């Protein structure tokens, strides 16, 4: 173990999946055997990923802690570092620091129904929880997933969506924005909040987990209110610009709370106590 929190673990890119235009998933393996054996994380945590020579960027760990031996991240090419990462090939080396941040309280959710509501590139943080929950399926009651993207092409994890769709113990609803559909599209057409309203999940003994762009979250919360979900049963993740990941560089705080340490997972009760600075 190294004691320099800024020194990344070296990881090998074992597998690259092109999820959607500009969106890739990397499966990463720790080079150091000791680290590979001992590395642990929980659903909701994130990491800092290095493209050496260009820098670091922040994404959640998109794989489930129940799947041992590797971690995965899914990212969209947007800035300097993600573009550099996207150029890397299978077998090459990159860096990983983490896991950082808090986690979804899966223990508290035992025996409950779960409704996952995700939009666009925000499925990755949720995919981690979804697989965690599905791999320990006996702990939970009904599981529903609502996932929306701009267009059919923009849907990520297409193979897994198919897998979830085929499972009898998961209720998957996918939707694309109007105009984003293809001729053979069989899912819903419409924005996430309105499709959620149509889905009409019961708030009884149910936790709603919402991840998506700010505008989606803004319009989804009122629908959940209308459906009768209490704020303490709604969870989301915040994203703020980060550099260090460990509460020092000064960027990600919302009021006195640091997204990198106190988050990224916040219940809606916690969220409402925060100033609007995210």
């Amino acid at each position, binding site marked *: 173990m*190294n*004691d*320099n*929190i*800024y*020194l*990344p673990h*070296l990881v090998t890119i074992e597998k690259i999946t092109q999820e959607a235009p500009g969106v890739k998933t990397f499966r990463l393996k720790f080079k150091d055997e000791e680290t590979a054996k001992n590395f642990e994380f929980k659903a909701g945590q994130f990491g800092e990923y290095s493209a*050496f*020579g*260009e*820098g*670091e960027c922040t994404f959640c760990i998109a794989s489930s802690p129940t799947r041992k031996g590797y971690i995965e991240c899914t990212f969209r090419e*947007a*800035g300097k570092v*993600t573009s550099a990462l996207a150029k890397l*090939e299978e*077998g*090459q*080396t*990159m*860096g990983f620091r983490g896991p950082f941040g808090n986690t979804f309280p899966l223990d508290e959710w035992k025996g409950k129904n779960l409704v996952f509501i995700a939009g666009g590139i925000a499925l990755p943080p949720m995919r981690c929880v979804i697989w965690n929950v599905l791999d320990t399926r006996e702990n939970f009651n009904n599981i529903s997933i609502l996932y929306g993207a701009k267009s059919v092409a923009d849907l990520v994890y297409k193979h897994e969506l198919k897998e979830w769709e085929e499972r009898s113990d998961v209720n998957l609803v996918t939707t694309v924005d109007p105009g984003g559909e293809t001729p053979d599209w069989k899912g819903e057409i419409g924005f996430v909040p309105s499709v959620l309203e149509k889905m009409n999940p019961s708030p009884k003994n149910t936790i709603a987990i919402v991840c998506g762009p*700010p505008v989606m979250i803004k319009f989804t919360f009122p629908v959940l209110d209308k459906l009768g979900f209490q704020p303490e049963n709604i969870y989301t993740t915040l*994203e*703020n*610009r980060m*550099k*260090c990941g*460990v*509460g*020092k*560089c*000064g*960027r*990600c*705080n*919302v*009021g*006195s709370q640091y997204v990198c*340490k106190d988050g990224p997972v916040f219940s809606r009760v916690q969220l409402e106590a925060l*100033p609007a*600075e*995210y």
Partner: protein
Amino acid sequence: MEKKHISQDSLKVWLNKMGNDGQRIFAPVSKGDKTDFKYITSADEISLDHIQTTQSAKAVAFPRTEKLFSFEKNKGDVQLTDFDAESVPYTVVFGIHPCDAAGFRPLSGIFNWDTKDKPFNAHIDRTTLISMSCTQCDDYCFCTSVNGSPGNTEGSDILLTPITDGYLVEIVTEKGKNLVDKYIDLFGADPNINKDDFLAKLPVKFNLEELNTKISHMFESEVWKQQSERCIGCGACAFVCPTCACFDIQEDTKGNSGNRLRCWDSCGFSLFTIHTSGHNPREIQSQRWRQRLLHKFSYMPERLSVRGCTGCGRCSRACPVDMNLSEHLTGIAEL
């Protein structure tokens, strides 16, 4: 606390001897109308006439640019070389004022809450602070309003106070004692004086209790907008501050190898918090000014049990548009 005396001449000898014995000496040196900390080779370079150096001495533990580790790429593979704590030189910071010595505690709070920051600690562990009490102050100083004082020993390893003949030496820590004991012949007995007689007199400017009570509930206040109108959004206040620790992480690359660097950054910069998407949680200057003050006077006390301000007044002196901090804090305390 153990007290001793050292003469003007012996002080110079002491500093030069420590330098010869391998300590790096970081001390105030004046040039033109500015005085700033520099690594010196002789005690003769030191200037002690200033009220306040332009910058604080924080760079000794938190340099403006620091290598966190280095990397070398080779056909898709990567080799890393960690930050080498052993290569950090032993350093004496001489002539900092009590407000600067006190500033290392909030800095340490930031760098050590939860996770420990190796580079920062490597520097701090090998640094001894020999401070100098203030015999003069100016209208920007306000240490006495934030629980400090011109002769405060907090944070120092050794505190010197200029007296009629030489200096009163207060040995505050074990680290300080080691540096005195090693050169014990240079020191005389406790001069037995009333230290306060030699210190600057600085009236309290605002009621700290009032400020503490009010500021934590002021996120939505109009005051931030009013106070920050003239702020032009540079980083001068943050960079001269003894407790500001915001940083950026950057890559210095040449060909296949390079260093990952940490460099000073400021919450006052407009792009500090901007997301790749273009969304910016602190879009306008008033939000950034609010962050600066709330971080120092509300968030840090709440999370780290230490205030992010020692009343040195540097931010006010450095500001191109006279954002006078004690005036703004007085305004808040009196709201």
